[in-house]
């Protein structure tokens, strides 16, 4: 395993800036997830690292060695694609052994056997080794596809939405498995996805990317609790953060450049609204629009001066649609007109 670094990397396709001045260091043993919508430049970044694309500007290095102009085959990278492309005529064993049998590598057969068996054990597919690849379930196929990358010991594993074609239950299972395997192997992984749950649950650090630009790189907790940017704040968290135009909340002290106040659903508290409070004028009052029952908790949809806000409540809390409630903002985040975070230094 190794360190991989990108310095000021840019890539254009005609008029489109697919990747803009992207700098990022991936440390040995880290699991980095690039999170962004389709078209954000995630896959292009992976392709630049593998050498399937070459950058217009910038440097890519692996373990301190500049590989920017090296051919893909010489970069010592393993790639897992979104669509598991197994060889249907081969057994699971032969599919896993395939990368090691490449004439360029010349791995002796006993070593191959050992690697394949170890990998199969890691992925819990030992009992399937003799099966044809086509006889597997979707989850097993994807395990084999991941396994085919894992049999090698490359500098870095690049994974392009490898779980997106699986159903929810399987995806949840494999998320946990993949994280366990990564920790066990001490593997360096760069993983791209548009699924925030995958990013939050697996990553050592998340890079939030939009329009080819890396907006923030940090641990899931840093990104969730301390977003640098309004977009980053809205990208993580379910339900997503409430964004309220600052002028709608006149009585709360906030930095002067504040354009938008961000308040996470768990930080928007509601309290019984007593008419008596009206006299002091300071209360922020919203109306319960709809109560969404999700079992473990309720999502309370509130109408506050025409803005729809969401907060969480205990499923057995006595609330009903149409009721007025007082809103309390705990730990609000302030964003300026450009969407950048303003540090909350109010005296």
């Amino acid at each position, binding site marked *: 395993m190794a360190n991989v670094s990108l310095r000021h990397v840019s890539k254009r396709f005609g008029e489109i800036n697919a990747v803009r001045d992207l700098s990022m260091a991936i440390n040995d043993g880290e699991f980095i997830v690039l999170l962004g919508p389709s078209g954000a430049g995630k896959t292009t970044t992976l392709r630049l690292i593998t050498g399937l694309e070459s950058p217009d500007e910038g440097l890519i290095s692996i373990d301190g060695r500049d590989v920017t102009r090296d051919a893909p085959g010489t970069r010592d990278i393993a790639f897992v694609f979104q669509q598991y492309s197994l060889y249907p005529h081969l057994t699971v064993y032969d599919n896993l052994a395939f990368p090691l049998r490449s004439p360029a590598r010349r791995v002796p057969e006993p070593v191959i056997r050992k690697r394949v068996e170890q990998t199969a054990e890691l992925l819990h597919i030992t009992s399937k080794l003799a099966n044809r690849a086509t006889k597997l379930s979707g989850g097993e196929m994807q395990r084999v596809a991941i396994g085919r990358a894992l049999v090698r010991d490359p500098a870095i594993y690049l994974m392009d939405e490898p779980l997106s074609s699986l159903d*929810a239950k399987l995806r*949840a299972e494999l*998320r*946990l498995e993949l*994280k*366990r395997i990564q*920790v066990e192997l001490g593997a360096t992984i760069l993983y791209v996805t*548009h*699924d925030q*749950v995958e990013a*939050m*649950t*697996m990553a050592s650090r998340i890079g939030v990317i939009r329009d080819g630009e890396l907006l923030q790189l940090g641990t*899931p*907790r840093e990104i*969730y609790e301390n977003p640098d940017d309004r977009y980053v704040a809205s990208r*993580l*968290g*379910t*339900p997503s953060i409430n964004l309220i135009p600052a002028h709608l909340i006149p009585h709360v002290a906030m930095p002067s450049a504040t354009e938008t106040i961000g308040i*996470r*659903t*768990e930080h928007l508290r509601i309290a019984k609204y007593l008419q008596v409070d009206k006299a002091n004028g300071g209360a922020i009052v919203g109306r319960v629009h*709809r109560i*969404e*029952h*999700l*079992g*473990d*908790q309720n*999502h309370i*949809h509130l109408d506050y001066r025409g803005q729809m806000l969401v907060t*969480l409540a205990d*499923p057995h809390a006595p609330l009903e649609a149409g009721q007025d409630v007082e809103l309390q903002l705990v730990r609000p985040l302030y964003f300026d007109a450009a969407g950048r975070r303003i540090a909350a230094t109010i005296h």
Partner: protein
Amino acid sequence: MAQIRVENLRKAFDQFTAVHDSNFTIENGSFFALLGPSGCGKTTTLRMIAGLELPTGGRILLDGEDVTFRRAAARDIAFVFQLFALYPHMNVEQNIGFPLKCQGMGRRETRERVLETAKLLRIEHLLSSKTSKLSGGDRQRVALGRAMVRRPKAFLMDEPLGALDAEFRQLMCGELRDLHDRIAATTIYVTHDQHEAMSMADRIAVMNAGRVEQIGSPQEIYDRPASMFVADFIGSPPMNFLRCDAGLDPDARAVKFKDVSIPIPELREQRPAGPLVLGVRPEHIRFSDPAPVRGRVFGAEYLGTTQIVTVTTEQGTVKARLPSSVPVQVGEIVGLSFRFDSLSLFDAQTGAAIQTISQESAHHG
């Protein structure tokens, strides 16, 4: 709008029974979800109500009137398949007005009805737009408008949001429910996605292998599942099951595992000795050093407000939902305590829920 009643409804295809004697009533103006995995009979049930499939037995009543063998077109029900199927060569107004044109309605009246529908959906400003120029959400609204414009007695929807990505689906769930609150049309909504059903429905029927396993409000079904199937199907992560072969202790106030005993709410039914299953929801588990159930942390998944911690115990793998402020180390040994009054018990053989006092009090309270 209408009440829909299904009595002993059954459908067999040769040897295979797709729907076993189903009974339920959908009250006028309510939003009813048929929820279950693929192949459970939910779509077949819906198609029989729509008149697209003839039942093998039983009756379907629309506002008290037997429509079991009436043709689909004569039932005054709108069936919404996929919310994106629009006519690409027509503009929004023509798309919405199409069903009325087919009925031979006059131009002026059609126009009025289309306008009224568009207002309800808040898409008046789009009436002259090409459908190909619309955003996904607006297309969906137009497709809904086409179903609404006939003012049918009920809407039947078959996985209308199935093709959408997760975030957009969530947004559309909110919209559909808001729309329902405005027009209060009786709606039957078929889905395999428990989140959609929980989020939108007044009542849910959970189906499994052609049978309705439970009917109730989302919260009832979540808090007091009638079977292990329902408990497993609802909730994410689903309910944890701890199989207990030793069964109950003599006074039935605890279940016994090999060397661990867990107190349970008082039973409300006589039970012979035998294996049973203790069910506990992930959010009803807390870390507690002195707790008798112990295990090793396998993984922790950070989700912002909360984290899902997977713990391997002697009794099986358990997933707990804890506040993300609780520090968790992979590999550490932890004790798990369960919220006593939220425990469920099931018969290990049949999977049926065993009645306890906390289920009762919840029911009447």
